């Protein structure tokens, strides 16, 4: 489990989007598991920032989570019973099974984040990219999400999280990338989250750690 950490405007989201081929890369090439993005697309799940969609959209939680399998289905093919079953499994994994037929707008912030997670679980990916999954969610949801991540890690999946809270970072992640316009440091958490690197990332601020 890897954290991408840096101040506002450091390019954390841009970094993720570039990896996922959502925005063009200015220079260089990106390889994932030794391949170009489009060859390993089915092994990658992306969970955007919660604010990136219109939560007033007329769609139920079930239908939104179902969208997670559209990538595997490809063009024109419709989801069937198998996919519907997966949706219920994914909802159960995030504790939202009771909310399948609820309008997404009726969910709380934490539940919305979990619904997003369920949608990503549908992709059955190897690598999960999450953009600020803990922004604006309560402690209970954060616990649920972290436990889910731990479980995924135990299954051998990789989880890459854009995160801004330094205080929780050291307990959550075993690998950290410090970013501020450029890569400041990347390595095991205890080697990277040191005052030297943090100062280089955030400037000269005193950290209460």
């Amino acid at each position, binding site marked *: 489990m890897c954290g991408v950490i840096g101040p506002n405007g450091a390019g954390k989201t841009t970094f993720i989007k570039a990896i996922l*081929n959502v925005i063009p890369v200015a220079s260089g090439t990106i390889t994932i598991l030794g391949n170009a993005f489009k060859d390993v*697309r089915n092994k990658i799940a992306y969970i955007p920032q919660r604010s*990136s969609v*219109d939560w007033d959209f007329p769609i139920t939680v079930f*239908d939104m989570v179902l969208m997670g399998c559209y990538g595997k289905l490809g063009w024109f093919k419709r989801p069937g019973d198998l996919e519907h079953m997966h949706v219920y499994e994914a909802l159960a994994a995030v504790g939202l099974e009771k909310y399948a037929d609820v309008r997404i*707008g009726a969910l709380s912030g934490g539940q919305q984040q979990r619904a997003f997670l369920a949608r990503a679980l549908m*992709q059955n990916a190897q690598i999960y990219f999450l953009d600020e999954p803990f922004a604006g969610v309560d402690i209970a949801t954060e616990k649920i999400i972290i436990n889910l991540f731990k479980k995924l890690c135990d299954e051998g999946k990789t989880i890459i999280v854009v995160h801004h809270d330094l205080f929780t970072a050291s307990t959550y992640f075993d690998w950290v990338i410090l970013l501020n316009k450029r890569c400041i440091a990347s390595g095991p958490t205890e080697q990277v989250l040191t005052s030297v690197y943090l100062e280089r990332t955030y400037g000269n601020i005193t950290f209460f750690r």
Partner: protein
Amino acid sequence: MGTSLFSVDYTLLLVLQGAALLGIVAGVLGSFVLLRQQSLLGDAISHAALPGIVMMFLCTYSKNPWILLCGGAITGIIGVLSMHYLCTYTTLKKDAILGIILSVFFGFGLVLMTVAQKIPTSNQAILNKFLFGNVSTLLIEDISAIALISCFIMIMLMVCWKECALYVFDPLFAQSLGFKTVVIETLLMILLVLTIVIGLQTVGVVLMSTMLIAPAAAARQWTMRLSSMVVLAGFFGACAAIIGVYASSVIEHLPTGPAIVVAASCIAFFSLLCAPKRGIA
């Protein structure tokens, strides 16, 4: 046009069919436009179609509305492309760009229209019908063309339903799943231009956008599923079109476009007020 209430004649039935089809297609596509939060896009495209229509007339002196509409479609697309260009290469906000494109193209169209009026032929009378719409001049060929285009739009939407829904809800996620969002966006844009093209004869340049937005906005109030919203918007659009056409056939000198638009607005207003959960009441 003095048709009495009980003698619905053949022509009226025909025209009603055409208008109802347009209502359905406009409502359905309007739902996507509304949810994509691009409500004014339809307005800009329809206004941008005017100079194309008049230019086509100046080139051909044709009375055939479909030839003129081809010109309209071309400038409509040019309007969309220039909006896209301005959006990408300037720091102007979207609403400002829409406003600029809309008024510049429409103003240019009106200038061309005064030029067309001075030409010694009687054919330019047809141009007026594109401003506010007039269904009484629709022929059977026009209705079949409308039916054909409507069918095409509906089939395309049904085939690509999953992709369109995904794109409209979460374009970023759609892209990360590996869908070419440019393709979906272009498809929706082409369908929108086609819808506007068949709508211009009925509702006219000025009021076309209401045909897209009002039924969709009304349907939005009643449902929490995209599929039922689209169906409902189509139904509302058809209702508005039928009521409007009928009213304009009964009341003399009432142009069809405004009549349809008033009917659509009434439905939307009623929905805003009365719909359960989302309504004001």
